[in-house]
């Protein structure tokens, strides 16, 4: 499982990195989304992978930490997801405004001279 998880993180990160190096703003926005997935999964993985042990205290098990998955990365990633959505929205609007002003969707706001 750990191997599959790591490969998944790697592939999404690679796709994201490739896209953020591309010249079109839409490629950038998709690239950032993919990179965000990869980074969120990576941070989540720092708490190690546990099956069937959600950090919701079960009265039968009590408060022994060994019975539960690490809640801390989850808490961090949860807000990261929401903030990630906000920045995507902001970026989208900047992208649209830049396109409106400059007439191009190149990341530099102008077409490169070939």
């Amino acid at each position, binding site marked *: 499982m*750990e191997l599959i998880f790591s490969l998944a993180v*790697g592939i999404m990160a690679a*796709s994201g*990195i490739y*896209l953020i190096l591309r010249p079109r703003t839409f490629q950038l926005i998709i690239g950032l989304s*993919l990179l965000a997935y*990869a980074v969120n999964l990576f941070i989540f993985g720092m708490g190690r992978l546990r099956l069937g042990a959600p950090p919701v205290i079960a009265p039968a098990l009590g*408060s022994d930490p060994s019975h539960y998955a690490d809640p*801390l990365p989850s808490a961090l990633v949860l807000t990261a997801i929401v903030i990630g959505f906000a920045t995507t929205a902001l970026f989208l609007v900047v992208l649209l405004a830049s396109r409106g002003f400059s007439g191009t969707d190149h990341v530099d706001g102008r077409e490169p001279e070939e």
Partner: protein
Amino acid sequence: MVLLLIVLLPFIGSLCAALLPTNARNAEAWLAGIIALTVVVLTAVQYPQVVDEAVLRLMIPWSRTLGIDFQLRMDGFAWLFAMLISLIGLLVVIYARYYMSPADPVPRFFSFFLAFMGSMLGVVLSGNLLQLAMFWELTSLASFMLIAYWHHRSDARSGARMALTVTGIGGLALLGGVLLIGHVAGSYDLDVVLAASGKIKAHDWYPMILALVAVGALSKSAQFPFHFWLPHAMAAPTPVSAYLHSATMVKAGVFLLARLWPVLAGSDLWFWLIGGAGLCTLLIGGYLALFQNDLKGVLAYSTISHLGLITLLLGMNSELALVAAVFHIINHATFKASLFMAAGIVDHETGTRDINRLSGLYRAMPITATLALVAAAAMAGVPLLNGFLSKEMFFTETVFLGRPEWQRLLLPVAATLAGMLSVAYSLRFIHQVFFGQPAVGLPHQPHEPTRWMLLPSALLVAACLLVGILPAQTVGPFLHTATGSLLGLSAPSYSLAVWHGLNLPLYMSMIALFGGIVLYLPCIGRRSAHIPLLERLDGKQAFNWLLSAVNDFADRLLGYLSSRRLQTQLLVILLVVVVGSLLPFADGPLRLGKRTLTEADPAFALLWVVGALCAVAAAWQAKLHRLAALIMAGGAGLATSLTFVWFSAPDLALTQLAVEVVTAVLILLGLRWLPKRDERFSAGKPEALRAHLRRLRDLLIALAGGGGIAALSYAILTRPTVDGIASFFVKQSLPRGGGLNVVNVILVDFRGFDTFGEITVLAVVALTVYALLRRFRPAPESMALPAQQVEQDLRDAPRGPDPAAGLPTGYLMLPAVLVRLLLPMAMLISVFFLLRGHNAPGGGFVGGLIFATAIILQYIVSGTVWVESRLRIHPLYWIAAGLLCAAAAGIVAAVAGDSFLTSEGWHASLPLLGEIHLSTVLLFDVGVYLLVVGATVLMLIAIAHQSLRSLPRKTETEGAS
């Protein structure tokens, strides 16, 4: 307490002054005058205590760990300066009331004036060197604002900029020097520093400390080679010149040198650095003053020259010279402020400051002329005036200098020469302006100004006379206290008598007096602006050249080091990250741990085969097939979401899922405004080899980055868990947080403050999106209705007899009914998720996103117009309510006596309802919920409204055609 009041009152006054109406000239003057008078009285009554206790202190602890406290400290020297600042401030306020024209915006003037007074008092009363540096900077800023007071004039703007640049650089150097001193002495406390004098002088850093402090002090006091800013600062209103640029602010430099004299003086380096700068300034300033044609220019250069004299005295390494320096500081402030006032009166009443145009004003304004005459005589060092006394002390010191032979010979000669220059320019000032034939063709007919404008100048001149005739009875005790506090037990004895008998200094004075008159003779009637010999010594030109050279250099360096192209920047960042993260492995390869791994599940493998394919496909298609790429990215997001739920993070999975939906809608809304496919790509034009190579390079970087993160991830996943702070949260979740869902308890309770910050960010981003889109203009070619929609409309248009006529029409009627029914259900579910969040997966974030999705769904199926005509949603109110709820939850705790955002619970058993538990945590989560709804809906609606914006314009043009 009184000390605090002395420093604080002017700042309070400054705030009040800023709030008064623009034309409240009298109210402003009264306010500033009363404040200055109060400060004068408060300072004056401290004097007996200063004499008795030597040092008054006030300390307000601030940052103990950094060793910085707010410390005020008044000894005799500080008292003298505080008195000087407040007293001359009071006189200048009275003068300024009549000087400023009714058209000038006086609140700005008095506000900055008072702020300056407070900062300057802060400088002299600071008991902590860092605090002193801060007030020092404040005086520079106030000076900047006051020089640029008439900011419609370009000379005022450039003069202000120059003054700020020079004194700002000096302030930075001073800060550096102070930090070094603090490090060597072990404290920034002035008392500790003064006690550590020996340690500092013996330290290796002493030359560095001295150089930095010298740059700070010399630039502030307009000493060579930083002297050039002061003449350009004369663009300020004359009261400002009189107060800041002659009497007080420029004295801050010499104040500091005197203050640190016991700590830093005594070395050869000090003599050459401080004394050398002083001597150069003394002579150059005096020489240049002789050739100025602007009244204020003469005074500016003479100020520079006199400050040079004071600096030279400080640099002589003799206690008596220090006494002379302090004495001359007082004397110079009185006669120079009075002279500036006289120059201001002349300017005010005649309309010009040009020496060549003015003459014979004695007849029209005899009182002004007399006052100016006496003050100028004091400046020239005529006996029975205060300037004479300190100049005699200066001459005496040059004669008895404890240095090698040639220096002992040179210095008295230079001093006499400076005295001659001083006499010559004073003479020129008086003779050309007030004597000779009455001037003709002046802008205004000259006449005596109002009495109140003369009073301040008259008082200062009276002080010059009193001190000059009866020095021991007037200024004597104060001078004694001041120098005593500087030098302590080593204070020398001196006599302030007017007559010391026939001695060498007196002869030097006489030579200076007659020599000055002789020197002036060739200058009579001289009109040229040409300055012989030193014409090329133009500080302003050098300064501008240096400034533009630095700018050019920075520009070129930036062009060389950086790129404006985003792709290049990102490439560099990624390369640094990849290479940088390889560095730790120089010692050895990445080691795997021995944690028992979870068994691979084929379903999970399949999930990620799909997920990975989606990610790669998104990367592949994002250029030309945006919709496909978006769907693929969504697929990867779903796989991520499922991974969260697989590995015991239901909260994350829920949030990810909800965000996935909202993001997809968001980007779909934006797709329309992106440009169509570029024809160049579809025309089958062969791509350049460079493009292929570039893509290959990026692919390699991507593989390296992805491979690296995968390896790192795997290595960590195989290692055993570390016992961090996680166990604390799990253990304390129920007892302290009162919730079973640990993740939610962390978010809304343990780390509530973080979450509070995060929802604030969310609100700010939403508002930014909203604001940006208000100014947004879509590209012209995107304005037309999309092709698909046009096609749909055509198909919907009735062709022949419509079988459906009579039936209700509209988009997506059936789904619309369902979705409308769904709205209340979705609301209920979102509230359900919100409420259960504390004990089971859910919470404010998820609940809010669910509700927002439901609202967006209404927009999608029914259209913006339909929804908004029936359902007014005010997302801004939601955001505000959310922030208020969250803040209220925090404040309730503060009211209850706990720290901000501590959870406060309330248990009760009610009849019928049973056991009830209310907690501020719920209120906080409600706040999160409201804010997430508001922010999400605001962003989505703002983008959705863009289509509406182009619509009316379109129908208008259609109607016109």
